[in-house]
């Protein structure tokens, strides 16, 4: 992959692969996946970093996010791959990018890509919710929820039919806490090429089932993992 040669010989340029870990928090969490692409494109342009363009009929900036982050969820572990046409040290790339990012987007590290995108299998999330019920009650209900044999949700297929899917076997509860005014749960959910489960879907299904009204919610993706349980880098 790293040494793949562009099809168009005339445009063939050396490319150097980079992988950035970045955070998307605060006001930036409302940037949609598509808009994020554009936002970073402009970061590169402003930073005068020589971004590598795809070599097809209609060249465009090569930026790749292996895993979409749900709108409204914070994260400090997001992954973005890109390629430059010059070999610029990782530290310098990081600095130049951070000088140009909008509020809430920050590059945490830049390094060589090690693993393939398809190695991503799961992610961990923290969800903290304030509701119309007492914290203790919500905690108990959540225990009940996770004790169910089956948790079926409706999932729309590509053919626009609706399938019932049991999400129960896909949810791993790592921790749950009763905080002063909110209930907090840490979950591991599958993601990547085979099966994706959105943290909001889990929380919404839970709240809907027990008639819980959310007044405030905070969700954060905390880890992106591979099958062997190690962090994806």
């Amino acid at each position, binding site marked *: 992959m790293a040494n793949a040669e562009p099809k168009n010989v005339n445009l063939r340029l050396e490319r150097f692969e980079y992988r950035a870990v970045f955070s998307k928090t605060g006001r930036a969490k409302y940037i949609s996946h598509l808009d994020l692409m554009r936002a970073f494109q402009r970061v590169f342009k402003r930073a005068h970093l020589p971004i590598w363009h795809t070599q097809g009929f209609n060249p465009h900036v090569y930026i790749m996010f292996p895993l979409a982050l749900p709108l409204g969820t914070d994260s400090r572990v997001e992954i973005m791959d890109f390629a430059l046409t010059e070999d610029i040290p990782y530290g310098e790339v990081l600095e130049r990018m951070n000088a140009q990012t*909008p509020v809430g987007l920050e590059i945490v590290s830049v390094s060589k890509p090690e693993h393939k995108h398809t190695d991503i299998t799961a992610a961990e999330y923290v969800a903290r919710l304030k509701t119309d019920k007492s914290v203790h009650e919500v905690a108990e209900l959540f225990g009940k929820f996770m004790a169910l044999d089956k948790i079926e949700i409706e999932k729309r297929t590509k053919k626009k039919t609706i399938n019932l899917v049991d999400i129960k076997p896909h949810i791993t509860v790592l921790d749950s806490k009763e905080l002063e005014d909110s209930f907090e749960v840490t979950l591991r959910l599958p993601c990547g090429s085979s099966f994706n489960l959105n943290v909001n879907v889990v929380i919404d299904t839970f709240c809907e089932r027990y008639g819980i009204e959310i007044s405030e919610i905070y969700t954060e993706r905390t880890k992106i993992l591979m099958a062997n349980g190690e962090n994806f880098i």
Partner: protein
Amino acid sequence: MEELKKKIEKLLLKVQRPSRYIGGEVGSVVKDKDKVDVRFAFCFPDTYEVGMSHLGMKILYGLKNARENWWCERVFMPEEDYNKLMRENDIPLYALESLDPIKDFDFIGFTLMYELSYNNVLEMLDLAGVPVLAKDRTELTPLVIAGGPCACNPEPMADFFDLFILGEGEEVNVELLELYERMKPLKPTKQEFLREAAKLEGVYVPSFYDVDYNEDGTVKSITPNVPEAPARVKKRVIKDFDKVYYPEGFVVPFTQIVHDRAVVEVLRGCIRGCRFCQAGFIYRPFREKSIDTIKNETKSLCEQTGYEEVSLSSLSTSDYTEINKLLENLVEYTDGEQINLSLPSLRIDNFSEELLEKIKSVRKSGLTFAPESGTQRLRDVINKNITEDEIMRTCRTAFEGGYSTVKLYFMLGLPEETLEDVEGIAKLAQKVLDLYYETPKEKRGKSVQISVSTATFVPKPFTPFEFEPQATPEEIKEKQEHLFKSLTSRKIRLSTHQSYTSILEAVLARGDRRLGKAIYTAWKKGCYLDGWDEHFKADKWQEAFEECGLDTSFYAHRRRSYDEIAPWSHLDYLVSHEFFVRENKKAHQAVTTRNCKEGCSGCGIKCEYGGVYCGKR
């Protein structure tokens, strides 16, 4: 305002494209509110996507924020989904930078771009918790003000604003805010402040003028009622356009907006004098920026924004005196940086192959031309000085260059228009199509598409057609049907405009103060976002006019005599009434007027305003 921010964040995930409502874009200016003396909410009475594309806002935003102790913030009209949630959750309209409610600002300033956005002003003020009627706002602040092209006849909106700014804003905005900053510590009443403000050239305070009407409903007189108010308020003009303030950077949105690119203004005003075109007269005289200035502004903007496209803005870019030299200079920079250079607003007549080559190096897409009418006679009536030969020559160049979609814009309902002229549109479109088939196969693009788009003509103030009646809906319908029947090829697609919106636009464009009541009534009935077809409620508007005892055809479909006192006659846009009368008479004789470059036709603008061609006979 942590509390409000929390409330906002709770709702954002329930609405479409929430990044429009939370700010934080690159280039947005955040200041410490304890260290600023004047806070200005720049409101655009339409959605974020439309408003963020508006150049005037970018200029005035940068201009005001260049002062350390002034803070200008952006405010847009929320879409229906968010509007509803804001109201249900008691979130007042807030500014995107601070997320503070705008009702606490010193100024709330609107730009009036389009008549059908008037009701959004009322909706936004109400959403902000500010009384919509100026007379109900008795405190000094917030001062609700407006500028923009529609301010040339702001009379229908006179009830809602404290003052209007006429003409170009770069100097007078600064003067107005300086005056406010000086007077604020003295705690003046609103009246005291407005009286001082009325002394500034370009400031029009509507409450300082009494309007009387004749029995037939026309205006009898417009008289100042305070000594500070001049009998005629002059619009402002930037005399040294090359030195005028221009922002070094823009606010770069996350979500895609209508014009998502860097924009550099190359010239202001227009030499052409097309008789239907308001912009062609109210932005006079024709002034240019130097190549160096344009180049520097382009560079600075591209670097700050990171945009991959820069567009040259003006009413007619190909009229730039040294257009080829300018483009050579710019292409040198943009090609090196892999930035696309786009040139909207090109004229057909001087559209050279060379020019085409330059824009083509960017991306081959469609071409858009506006012949405006189908026959030479009617083009002479409207003084659109292009010939069919020129149109054909340009289209040939375009087809041979590989372009395959051509959009042609026309107007229906022009003065002196006959069914023969309407047929002319179909004939012209057919000729363009035939031209494509005559183009050698190896040169032309794969499949051709001609789009014919017709708008209904709306007579506007400060044009030679300000005296003309608008065609009635019946006449327009007949013409649209006739055109539809005259078109025979499936390769020609026709689109037409809704008729009631054009009537409303005509009523508001040349209306007087009595219309304020109808606007208010229609807004109360739920009319806003009128520029969006899915929101436009023709029946509610009609009800509003009827309840207020106002007749739309009095405003839209009546021929006005040359000596009738127009509702905007106390506003001076520097082009003389005599010139408009002269031009109107020539129009009815189908006689054209030369453009400013060919020689001065005496429109009344004085040489002192810095026009490139002014005084050159």
